[in-house]
């Protein structure tokens, strides 16, 4: 087996509304390693959720994946996801790659008991055997008791529903889990529990996780590697400690310094990003971050969006990689104690 479980090559996904074509992903390259947690961080509209949906081929017409290749590396060899037949992709989903959706509160069927939701999932994916044991097992590893089996979703708290949707995503034993903002709607205490739970499950089940979030703090607490998304591309990617200690793209630097921590001095002015992301329905020339970048110059307009390796496995898409934005107050970091 290769140590890369999923590789995305030159992916382009287009959304169509009326006459407009929005390029949500622009020529995207990405490798996910076996057994790692890769966090994808970006503002809303940057395309990070679209990537998750594209990997599972959940993009429906008139929207389409117009270009590129997604290869999943399995024990049985390489599978090209975009070339699978419809029955093929249905077998592929959940058994190989599954997803926790953004609003976990709403993914559960409100009029079915929790155990029936599991049975539905098993039947849809041709899983036979003792359902009872399986359901108990997956509820247990997600930190829930058997007592929730007979309950309906409205009888559960937000955190419990989130755990049920984690259990549902894991119950067909996938190799890769895509978690799309799984903790955004949760309180901090429950968020921490769910994050630690995911981390534990990763080791226990030898999972690979793509963790999608807009919160760099959450990303840096759980991920092995971080990819920063901007305007449909990954503009910086590297090991978590490299990205948070030495952010090389001006956007990453601004994103990091706009974070408020419990040590941010009071009555200070927070660094902010001005402007808004580019309109992805029009052609982008040069660097997509150019209009918002505090350290831009004319040469940025001719930038061809190429990757530069600034240190080992740390890539950045900037014409002057490592350029420092002046006056950045990057919050004091807490070293990761593994």
């Amino acid at each position, binding site marked *: 087996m290769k140590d890369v479980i999923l590789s995305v090559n030159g992916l382009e996904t287009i959304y169509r509304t009326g006459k407009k074509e929005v390029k949500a992903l622009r020529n995207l390259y990405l490798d996910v390693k076996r057994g790692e947690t890769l966090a994808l961080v970006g503002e*809303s509209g940057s395309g990070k959720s679209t990537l998750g949906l594209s990997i599972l081929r959940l993009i429906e017409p008139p929207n389409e994946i117009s270009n590129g290749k997604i290869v999943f590396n399995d024990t049985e060899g390489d599978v090209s996801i975009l070339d699978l037949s419809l029955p093929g992709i249905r077998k592929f989903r959940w058994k190989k790659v599954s997803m926790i959706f953004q609003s976990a509160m709403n993914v559960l069927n409100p009029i079915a008991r929790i155990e029936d939701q599991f049975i539905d999932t098993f039947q849809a994916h041709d899983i036979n055997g003792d359902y009872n044991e399986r359901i108990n097992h997956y509820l247990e590893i997600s930190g829930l008791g058997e007592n929730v089996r007979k309950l309906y979703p409205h009888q559960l708290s937000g955190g419990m529903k989130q755990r049920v949707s984690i259990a549902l995503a894991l119950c067909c034993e996938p190799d890769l889990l895509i978690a799309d903002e799984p903790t955004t709607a949760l*309180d901090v205490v429950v968020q921490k529990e769910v994050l630690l739970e995911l981390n534990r499950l990763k080791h226990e089940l030898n999972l690979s996780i793509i963790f999608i979030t807009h*919160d760099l703090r959450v990303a840096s607490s759980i991920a092995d590697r971080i990819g920063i998304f901007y305007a449909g591309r990954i503009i910086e990617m590297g090991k978590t400690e490299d990205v948070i200690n030495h952010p090389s793209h001006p956007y990453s630097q601004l994103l990091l310094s706009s974070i408020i921590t419990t040590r941010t001095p009071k009555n200070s002015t927070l660094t902010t990003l001005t402007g808004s992301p580019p309109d992805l329905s029009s052609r982008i020339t040069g660097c997509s971050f150019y209009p918002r970048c505090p350290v831009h110059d004319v040469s940025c307009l001719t930038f061809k969006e190429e990757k530069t390796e600034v240190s080992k496995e740390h890539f950045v898409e900037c014409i002057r990689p490592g350029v420092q934005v002046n006056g950045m107050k990057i919050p004091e970091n807490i070293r990761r104690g593994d």
Partner: protein
Amino acid sequence: MEYQLRNDDEYSTGESEYLIEFKNITKIFKSGHIQNYALDCVNLKIKPGESISVVGESGSGKTTLGLLAVKLLTPSKGEINFEGKNIAKIRGSRLREFRLITQMVFQDPYSSLNPYNTILESVSLPLVSNKSTIEKRDGIKLTKNEIRKRVAITLDRVGLSPGESFLDIYPKKLSGGQRQRVAIARALILSPKFIVADEPTSMLDVSISAQVLNLLSQLKKEFNFSMIYISHELATSRFISDKMAVMNLGRIVEYGRSEDVTDHPRHPYSDILIKSVPEIGGFIDSNNTTKINYNVLNGGIKGCTFAHSCPKVTDKCRIERPELQDLGNEHYVACFHPL
């Protein structure tokens, strides 16, 4: 007795050192036979120009507290004094006066603005619906032009400039951060003395939420209003507020200057809340495994609300209610075994 008398005097003249004062407030929501104590005997005082953040998890009663403060709810027991006067029973013209000086900013900027109204219509609504009162107060006529002018100025103030260019567009053209600025402009247009902001940044991206926080803290200095900032996010709460009240199941369990509470929490619950905040590079303490028991029904708990989950619990905690005790330095904690 003397203390009592002095208080009575204060109320008769309507003067108080505090802008708003919660006295033994209890709010019960009934569903069938179940009585849910959303707030259980809460005391809180806010000075003019002071901002207080109320933090806690969902179900702790923080939003109920905010809604009571602007009289969108009425308490089941206790009294709320605004500028020394009890607002429980006010109605008619006095209620309208109260509405002029208290405002609210809601959590979700996507649902708090009417999609069929232009920004001008949304932001001017407080002016239009209080037209006669404002005309009497300010001694000018609120013509259409005057209203347009005031709205444009306010939009400029919240960073939507030029304000003129935003007047006639609809919310769908605005981003989440811009919408929240509109919601803040709508709260500011009557120059209120008091604003309740209910999780105003929780729906926004991190970078946008920094902008909104900068704006709020700058406006606070400029307009000198008091604010209740409701959030479950301790880092932003600490940044924006002077004081912090930590709530657990309808009670305030810790209260003090926000940096004191976040940097040196004394209640075990506050401690867990703070240790759950993700920081850059990881959790402060990922070994802390105290689990909160969420199966506690909030039906008038006799002892401490946190007794079911507290690592330091003793028999006393289950029977006797801990009251807020002064630890000095304006720091109060309701715990028999403070950290």
